[in-house]
């Protein structure tokens, strides 16, 4: 057990007898190269020792327990805190699966403690209820900031078509996931790549190395297949799950989040994100600078990098219109306070389930539907709202996670968030949904 893990254990998880360990641990920590943790303990000691008559150690332990209680306590979705983003209503599950036919499957991989600990996984989105390779959907990509990977989009942007499920995972898992996805598609569609055209799976990534020994690439092709086979409609697990297991965002634990909105025309827009971006001071909830007002929980939770955002709708949008939906997704991202820093791969994929385009050579002409550009605005509104809430749901639902080398990413302290939002007059009657 590394000293960092010991440190975590006595300091955060199960309080050690501080007197017996303090000196030894502090000396170890003072030589520790991990500045974040060293800074943390130094700052904590300084701040508590300034208070007159303070029982230093007792205070630290008490604070630690409070933090664990607040962050590791029951997670609640944003709406369960009574916070409403925008004015449109969500669908029944307030999830991307509210767009009919969409299924989500996830495999979560948690292995080991301390050095070499793995906190990763894969999330798969099946875009409709049937074989997506046989019946493609219109899609488009919007690259808000390109420092990331989403495979398959060269072809997707050319053809305007989504031909495979969409996979979300850690950066170094992309090759394995892509390979597994390709094999799976080949098995499902024996003619693919031979008598029939190829399809290039869409696999997107965020860098989860703060919590996971991501270089060890401990995901297997079986994990990917398991995720596909577990895919279902209805409620979607959020937070530290699937591809989001090791992600951190806004200085807190990030991961998978989802939300949806319905328009007056009875169209649904669903958004699912894998959030691993932005700093704590940037966090805004419904315009309130919550990140600046949260007390405790350490300042850093790993350098944050990238967010992948998927938007789906049952409105019949054409590829160039979906690109514009993608731009509105970026606006929703901006409303959470994120700034798309240079190292953040903020990549957005939007698709519509309304027109099913049989794979090439089945017919000469396709009869299709397309939304009038002049009446598309409500879908933009739905997109911006759902994006914002999906990102915040990822934060609200993600539990405190201890990962590689004892690195700790705290879950967003939802109780504190509730208090802050109340202080700003943003929480009225509680709404559960």
């Amino acid at each position, binding site marked *: 057990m590394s000293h960092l893990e010991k440190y975590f254990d006595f300091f955060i998880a199960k309080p050690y007898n501080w007197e017996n360990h303090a000196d030894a641990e502090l000396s170890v920590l003072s030589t520790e190269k991990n500045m974040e943790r060293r800074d943390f303990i130094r700052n904590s000691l300084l701040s508590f020792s300034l208070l007159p008559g303070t029982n230093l150690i007792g205070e630290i332990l008490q604070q630690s327990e409070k933090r664990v209680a607040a962050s590791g306590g029951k997670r609640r979705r944003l709406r369960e805190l009574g916070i409403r983003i925008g004015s449109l209503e969500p669908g029944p599950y307030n999830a991307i699966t509210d767009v009919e036919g969409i299924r989500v499957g996830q495999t979560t991989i948690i292995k080991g403690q301390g050095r070499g600990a793995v906190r990763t996984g894969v999330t798969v989105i099946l875009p409709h209820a049937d074989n997506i390779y046989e019946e493609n959907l219109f899609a488009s990509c919007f690259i808000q900031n390109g420092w990331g990977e989403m495979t398959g989009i060269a072809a997707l942007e050319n*053809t305007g078509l989504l031909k495979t499920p969409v996979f979300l995972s850690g950066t170094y898992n992309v090759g394995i996931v892509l390979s597994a996805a390709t094999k799976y598609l080949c098995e499902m569609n024996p003619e693919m790549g031979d008598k029939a055209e190829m399809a290039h799976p869409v696999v997107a990534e965020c860098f989860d190395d703060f919590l996971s020994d991501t270089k060890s690439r401990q995901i297997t092709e079986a994990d990917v297949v398991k995720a596909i086979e577990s895919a279902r409609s209805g409620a979607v697990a959020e937070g530290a799950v699937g591809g989001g297991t090791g992600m951190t965002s806004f200085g807190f634990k990030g991961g998978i989040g989802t939300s949806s909105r319905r328009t007056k025309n009875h169209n649904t827009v669903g958004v699912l994100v894998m959030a691993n971006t932005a700093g704590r001071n940037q966090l805004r909830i419904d315009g309130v600078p919550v990140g600046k007002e949260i007390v405790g929980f350490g300042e850093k939770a790993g350098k944050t990098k990238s967010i992948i955002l998927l938007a789906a709708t049952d409105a019949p949008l*054409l590829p160039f219109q979906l690109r514009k939906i993608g731009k509105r997704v970026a606006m929703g991202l901006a409303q959470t306070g994120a700034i798309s820093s240079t190292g953040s791969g903020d990549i957005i994929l939007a698709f519509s389930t309304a027109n099913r385009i049989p794979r090439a050579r*089945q017919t*000469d*002409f396709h009869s*299709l539907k397309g939304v009038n550009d002049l*009446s598309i605005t409500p879908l933009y509104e739905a997109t911006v709202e759902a994006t914002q809430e999906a990102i915040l749901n990822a934060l609200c639902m993600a539990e405190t996670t201890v990962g590689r080398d004892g690195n700790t990413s705290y879950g967003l302290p939802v109780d504190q968030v509730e208090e802050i939002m109340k202080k700003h007059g943003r929480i009225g009657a509680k709404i559960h949904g």
Partner: protein
Amino acid sequence: MDNAITDVKGVKVAHLTIEKDLPSPAGRAAAIRTGLTAVIPYPMEKALRLFCANLCLKGNAEMTGYEVLDDFCYLNSPVVITNSFNVGQAYDAVLSYGFAQNRDEVWPPVIIGLNDSYLNEMTKFSFDEKEILQALFNAKDGKVEQGSVGVGVGLRAFDWKGGIGTSSRRLLIGGQELTCGVLAASNHGNSDFAEGSLSLVMATDVPLFPHQIRQVLRAVLAGLGPAQVKTNPAESVSGIFFSTANAMSMATERPFVFDYLMIDDSWLERISAACSEAVLESIRNSLTKATAVSGRQGRTVKPMPEDVQSKVLRI
């Protein structure tokens, strides 16, 4: 048919040629050798818009309406090619052209600017709105005048006389006869002039969606060899490709949903080949149909001799 862009049903072409010598108090008269060539994509009194995509390959060229073409992927205006300095006047004239038909939806005007300063005194801003409007209203289908006509009068390509050229190709798809038509303005490949450009207006009645049009445009560009576009960073290819097949009402927010027809992707290869052929033949026509023009500073540009044609144009 006429082997012209007008073979695509509904498409009309207008030329306004301006050749005059303005007296100048300080010696030599200012030679005006310019004009305007417009492609009217459909009967403009109908408030419709068409799927399109635009291209601006490298270079320093002007194309107005770029943002709507790029983001909304529809064309709602004549496509006008003129000299770079007259773009503003042409833009304004196209607005007047729309308002004259009780339409304020002829927006944004799509104006492509070319530098014809070798033969033309560009700085004289020699346009008269009435003349432009007259030309636009007199746009014709059928045979298209080529060579040193319209904006082509002042153009120069490969150091010889450039100008306007057009061509078309037919395709049989699912029992339907469909057409791809091209109009080219050649002003590129000159050895002593960097800011040349080739402008292409392409039309079809094949039901292409914007993302498909982009694919075809890329294929067409790949087919343009060094003989067609010199590899000078300031040389540009700019153009627009529109499909008349899916015409959407521009007037109201209703209906919420339009019905469309879309060609299967498997045809894009054939369509690209047809467009490539028509583009190359349009460029060739722009050179072979051009006649000698004398203009600014006593310069004369002669048509490309036949032996040079076979060398430059590998068509």
